């Protein structure tokens, strides 16, 4: 297959959207619904809750810190074999976990093995998606990411049912079978060769290039700040509501309200990101600022209607900033370096994610209420959006968001690529 100058913006790209949808469901939906297994593990291994929660924490940490590895491998081999291998690893981790006899086994199987599998799947898929779309990139990303929210709805009751039928060992076996579908999703990722690929070179060269790329580094800092504040409401909203004397059931219901407005925000923002001309970074700044303001308003809201309105708005704006956050990257570094770029970003921003919740908890312990936590979260988001202003072409409207490296190859030139796959010459 010859090189393309521009992403196809459709065609097989929609199959990639489908694949990314199912992958976000199978990776993050499973992670988010894992709390259902939590109670079973506490009872089965007779361990305290804190030690059991490490299973999910290790899984998330390995998935995020392993992202650059997934990206580098995808640059070299293409996304398809990497994602398929990741799917097998993730399923294998769950399979071994079904035979666990101690908590350490679970740390290693689910945390380390499945976490590595997830690291090899999610980032390469999103990067591949960015390569297939340019005009409709934000919409495609938004659609793909709705998989996360919808799967959390579906998987929590499904896992509960599996537990009631097969107990936790059998249920883990079946979640492993479910995770095998990641392999099928990986098969859908047809390799795409874009014109700038031979120019940017292999993963090592790309990584070195990115680390010297000013705008990329600033963008990474911005995303890290955003990530620090982003998760705090999901982690602490229910506790904050309980502090305000809400009952547990309405408090949990309020979280589901946010979970509904979240995918709506993602799709709307995706569509908007493509429809509005100019750099997508402006929209990211808009959504981030809005989210930061909403978070800062939380301590002031006491009445239930105000809290419900704020939560709906938070779900919408926080969902809205996700697809545009992914869309800014190809504009900055070009679709050729997207794999490595995305991997690096995921790794660094995860530091923010890891620090955010404990920091918020610490502020709560020191001050006694969640006011300081929410205000700090809002401040981080606003700081992140501030850094975004420093990105190139932010204030001046750029004519097109062309990749940095010039496209010089003619359409028919066939250049040997450092990548294998079907259809490649």
């Amino acid at each position, binding site marked *: 297959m*010859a090189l*393309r*100058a*521009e992403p*196809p*913006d459709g065609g097989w790209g929609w199959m990639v959207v489908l694949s990314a949808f199912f992958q976000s469901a199978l990776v993050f939906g499973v992670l988010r619904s894992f709390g259902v297994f939590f109670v079973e593990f506490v009872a089965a291994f007779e361990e305290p809750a804190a030690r059991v929660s490490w299973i999910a924490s290790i899984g998330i940490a390995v998935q995020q810190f392993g992202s650059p590895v997934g990206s580098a491998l995808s640059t070299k081999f293409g996304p398809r074999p990497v994602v*398929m291998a990741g799917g097998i690893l993730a399923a294998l981790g769950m*399979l071994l976990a079904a035979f666990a006899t101690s908590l350490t086994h679970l740390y290693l199987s689910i945390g380390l093995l499945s976490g590595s599998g997830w690291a090899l799947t999610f980032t390469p898929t999103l990067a591949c998606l960015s390569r297939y779309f*340019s*005009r409709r990139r934000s919409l495609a990303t938004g659609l793909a990411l709705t998989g996360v929210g919808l799967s959390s709805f579906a998987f929590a009751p499904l896992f509960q049912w599996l537990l*009631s*039928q*097969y*107990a936790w*060992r*059998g*249920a883990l*076996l*079946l979640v*492993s*079978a*479910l995770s*095998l*579908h990641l*392999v*099928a999703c990986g*098969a*859908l990722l*047809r390799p795409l060769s874009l014109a700038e690929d031979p120019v940017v070179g292999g993963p090592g060269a790309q990584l070195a290039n990115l680390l010297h790329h000013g705008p990329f580094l600033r963008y990474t800092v911005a995303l890290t700040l955003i990530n620090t504040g982003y998760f705090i409401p999901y982690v602490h909203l229910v506790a904050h509501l309980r502090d305000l004397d809400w009952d547990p059931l309405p408090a949990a219901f309020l979280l589901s309200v946010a979970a509904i407005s979240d995918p709506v925000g993602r799709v709307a923002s995706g569509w908007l990101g493509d429809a509005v*001309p100019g750099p997508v970074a402006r929209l990211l700044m808009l959504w981030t600022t809005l989210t930061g303001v909403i978070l800062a308003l939380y301590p002031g809201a006491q009445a239930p209607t105000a809290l419900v309105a704020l939560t709906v708005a938070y779900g919408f704006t926080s969902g809205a900033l996700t697809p545009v956050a992914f869309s800014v990257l190809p504009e900055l570094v070009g679709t050729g370096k997207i794999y490595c770029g995305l991997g690096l970003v995921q790794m660094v921003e995860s530091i923010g994610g890891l620090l955010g919740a404990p920091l918020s908890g610490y502020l709560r312990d020191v001050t006694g209420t969640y006011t300081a936590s929410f205000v700090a979260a809002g401040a981080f988001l606003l700081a992140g959006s501030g850094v975004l202003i420093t990105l190139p072409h932010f204030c001046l409207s750029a*004519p*097109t*968001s*062309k990749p940095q490296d010039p496209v010089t190859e003619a*359409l028919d030139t066939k250049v040997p690529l450092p990548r294998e796959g*079907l*259809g490649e010459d």
Partner: protein
Amino acid sequence: MPSLPSLRGPRAPPLPLLLLCLLAPVRRSSEDGRTPAASFTSLPVREEMMAKYSNLSLESHNISLTEHSNMPVEKNITLERPSNIELTCQFMTSGDLNSVNVTWKKGDELLENNYLINATGSILYTQYMFTIVNSEQMGSYSCFFEEKKEQRGTFNFKVPELHEKKKPLITYVGDSVVLMCKCQDCFPLNWTWYRSNGSVQVPVGVPMNNKYVINGKNANETRLKIMQLSEEDQGSYWCHAIFQLGESEEHIELVVLSYWVPLKAFLGIAVEVVLLVAIILLFEMYTQKKKKHSDDGKEFEQIEQLKSDDSNGIENNAPRHRKNESVGQ
């Protein structure tokens, strides 16, 4: 209704009326039998019994009835250890209190002694005092007021019930499991475990061996650990909480599956995934082949057209099969 003199006579100090009734003296149980209602107070209390059980706690319970009560009134009382009991029924009617017939029954058996009757205004009080020390004394105690219609109030005494768990426990062959029974606010004297095949309950874990271990962290819970599970261990298990005044039981269902059950489902899904991957990859190879053929075909056409155009000198506007790039955003 005039106040009724106490048998103690005028030496008694003036006290509130009900208290007066309660302080009525001992009466030989052989005299008179049951006196008609409201004639005078009677309270044959066995002083020896009171002295023996004076270290027990006192439970007092009340039921109110009116002449218009349609349904019998019931009160459920949970009793864990031996206690002195004081049951009071009051009956309000507009009619003549003298004509009301008052009786107490335990179950269907008429009770002869130990109750007193008193009246104030238009309310008739009756009180039954006794002690519960063993399980035969538990049950239902009822007071009856018979006027035109019979009105009835019932006190049901039961030992504490165990918390009902409905979900069956699912385990696998070779695993070990812990069955737990817990009593919320009560402390049984002892716990025992049984399993049932059909209706017969067979004790379990009594000779503690490698298979069964019974222990409990506190007095209000018990744990039965079963190791080396096999499919024969599947079935109903019962834990009995033994109190001085009776027993209470809870049912736990144990299901033992073999690993093959979820494994079959797993293999089925794995096969499905392999098929999906095969279909996707084969479809891709098929479309690539088609494209290649049409590529070759079109290239051939283009070459032909170029040849003919060259010879004709007409400008070549043959459509290219590759998609033209779109202009920016």
